[in-house]
């Protein structure tokens, strides 16, 4: 398997011998054409309003970053092969054809300058869901061999090692030991029949180990039974970022396998927006099967615990806090109110960014942009929109719930020498838990929970 994965065929296992080709790319695109796509292409009048919603266009001013333009190869294929008029035109030799050179030219447009944040999908006056089409267009890019090095490498590592960053269980195990010794609590591993299987993201394990300690404390406090799985700890799905349904299915199947083996009823996606949409919305479709368990983002679980009165906090943060909604969590998954209810629990001075929730602006790093080294400059350019939003409300700290967003916010704010620390919401909650040995705690209720 290891060898197979290093060949181009590994990114499209159904025909490993043929490798990438224009024809395979076009075939992958044909398979992605559906009624929504046809209705979207039929309706675009080139008004360009999607550009005003795109941080990559807004911050560079380059018209080639207009979202609908990024879909031109897919549109040409649709017109040529999926409309009667287009078929008539091509039969007499009229109309443009999709070529390998064209796909090569479009690679940076579809990957480097699009985080699939979906903001353009919210503003298009005719109702085009552009993000939905970008996701589909990437399938054709992978199959034709036009996807970025960084994302190919991440996909290969994810299939081979279980982690897009090549992280092994050993590394996580060291962290587990740290968490156990500093918290005095057990981090459950491979426990059968518990309520929740907890997944993590490699980015989080490496950059933000405080998350694992935070959930360990919160779950002990609220009496939640949970476990990690040695077989599968990674929640992210490189296959979905690069645009390969086949890789996506392999990675999703690992989560399903681990959850089934442990007999859990619920799976928790970590503070990562992408992982959540990958496993919550795309996963079941990648494996063409409904899950035998439910999927929650950690913020949804914490909000449920809060609503049930199982999280008891004391004290509040007194500095001015604002919040960045991860696109994948808010706009693309409808988790918007939950994080605000949790903020109310622990923040005295919370102020929302002007455009937030479903109309928030992307940090610029999602959709594989942060794994694509070639996109570095564009990633920082797109961040300027977020920076402007932050400057408007002048917070002392930013709160978010996605490790990729958090890393991008930290790097971006540093780049522009803005002294605004960024914290994860889960840790912030853990910092305010009522200690179990204090008289304020209600032991009877906790054991019941």
């Amino acid at each position, binding site marked *: 398997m290891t060898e197979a994965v290093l060949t181009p065929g590994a990114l499209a296992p159904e025909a490993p011998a043929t490798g990438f080709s224009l024809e395979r790319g076009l075939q992958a695109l044909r398979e992605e054409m*559906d009624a929504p796509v046809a209705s979207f292409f039929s309706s675009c009048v080139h008004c360009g309003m999607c550009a*005003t919603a795109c941080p990559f266009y807004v911050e560079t001013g380059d018209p080639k970053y207009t979202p609908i*333009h990024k879909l031109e190869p897919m549109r040409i294929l649709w017109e040529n092969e*999926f*409309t009667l008029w287009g078929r008539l035109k091509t039969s007499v030799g009229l109309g443009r054809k999709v070529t390998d050179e064209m796909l090569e030219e479009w690679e940076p447009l579809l990957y480097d300058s699009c985080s699939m944040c979906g903001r353009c999908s919210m503003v298009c006056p005719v*109702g085009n869901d552009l993000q939905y089409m970008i996701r589909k267009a990437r399938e054709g890019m992978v199959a034709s061999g036009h996807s970025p090095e960084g994302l190919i490498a991440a996909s290969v590592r994810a299939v081979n090692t279980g982690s897009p960053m090549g992280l092994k269980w050993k590394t996580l195990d060291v962290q587990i030991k740290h968490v156990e010794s500093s918290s005095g609590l057990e981090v459950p591993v491979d426990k059968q029949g518990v309520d929740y299987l907890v997944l993590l993201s490699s980015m989080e394990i490496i950059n933000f180990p405080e998350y694992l300690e935070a959930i360990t404390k919160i779950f002990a406090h609220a009496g939640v039974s949970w476990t990690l799985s040695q077989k599968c700890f990674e929640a992210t799905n490189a296959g979905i970022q690069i645009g390969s349904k086949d890789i996506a299915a392999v990675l999703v199947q690992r989560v399903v396998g681990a959850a089934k083996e442990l007999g859990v009823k619920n799976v928790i996606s970590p503070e990562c927006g992408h992982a959540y949409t990958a496993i919550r919305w795309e996963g079941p479709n990648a494996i063409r*099967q409904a899950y035998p368990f439910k999927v929650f983002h950690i913020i949804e679980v914490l909000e449920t615990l809060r609503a049930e009165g199982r999280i008891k906090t004391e004290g509040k943060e007194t500095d001015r806090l604002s919040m960045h909604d991860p696109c994948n969590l808010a706009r693309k998954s409808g988790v918007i109110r939950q994080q605000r209810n949790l903020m109310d629990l622990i923040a005295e001075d919370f102020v929302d960014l002007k455009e937030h929730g479903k109309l928030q602006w992307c940090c610029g790093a999602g959709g594989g942009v942060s794994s694509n080294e070639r996109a570095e400059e564009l990633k920082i350019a797109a961040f300027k929109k977020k920076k402007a939003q932050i400057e408007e409300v002048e917070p002392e700290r930013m709160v978010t719930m996605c490790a990729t967003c958090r890393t991008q916010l930290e790097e971006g704010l540093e780049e522009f020498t803005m002294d605004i620390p960024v914290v994860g919401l889960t840790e912030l909650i853990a910092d305010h838990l009522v200690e179990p040995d204090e008289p304020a705690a209600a032991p009877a209720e906790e054991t019941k929970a």
Partner: protein
Amino acid sequence: MTSMDFLMLTKGPLFQAALAIFAIGLVVRIVEILVLGRAHNYAEPRGNAVVGGLRTLYKRFHTDAGTFKAAPFDVVVGTIWHIGFIIALLLFIPHVELIESTLGIAWPALPNPVVDAITAITLLGLMAALVHRLMHPVKRFLSTPEDYLIWAVTFLVALTGYLAYHRVINPYPLGLGLHILAAEIFLVVLPFTKLTHIFTAFIARYYNGAIFGRKGVQS
């Protein structure tokens, strides 16, 4: 051919032919969209797709505050000329009479001077939209000959109607015949160009709203 012969030609066989091409062409376009269907969705929904779809179908008539600030010209001018065009099409007395004689349904029309003023505003709006398309970096970059073609056929319908009403072209049957011909060109061009958005935008909005609505987001 006299101007009256020309008028009779446009009102008779040309009108029938244009209507047939429009109707058949439009049905083909809509069928070729819908037959593609959608893959079964195995993810457990958070919200109702149908409700979301229907709501977005209506809600995209309104622009969010941020987008309005970013593209005020598009929103204001675009809204004005679209509404103006629809009013002139559906609420001008002779048009209502034509629809009644063709489809057998009728509704109250607006007084002629009102429609006249609205048509003038629509023409100005369309001209402004063309200038904007030629000047705005994104619009100019995206625009293809088709975009200018559909602008022209739309503008010509409104312009010839305005000229016929004011009897600028003489004799009058020629002026009216030219307007009817322009409308026929519009009908014939529609199914083969992005003028189809007049109908397909509602399908697109529905799908957008349904995709987001299923995930619990009102788009």
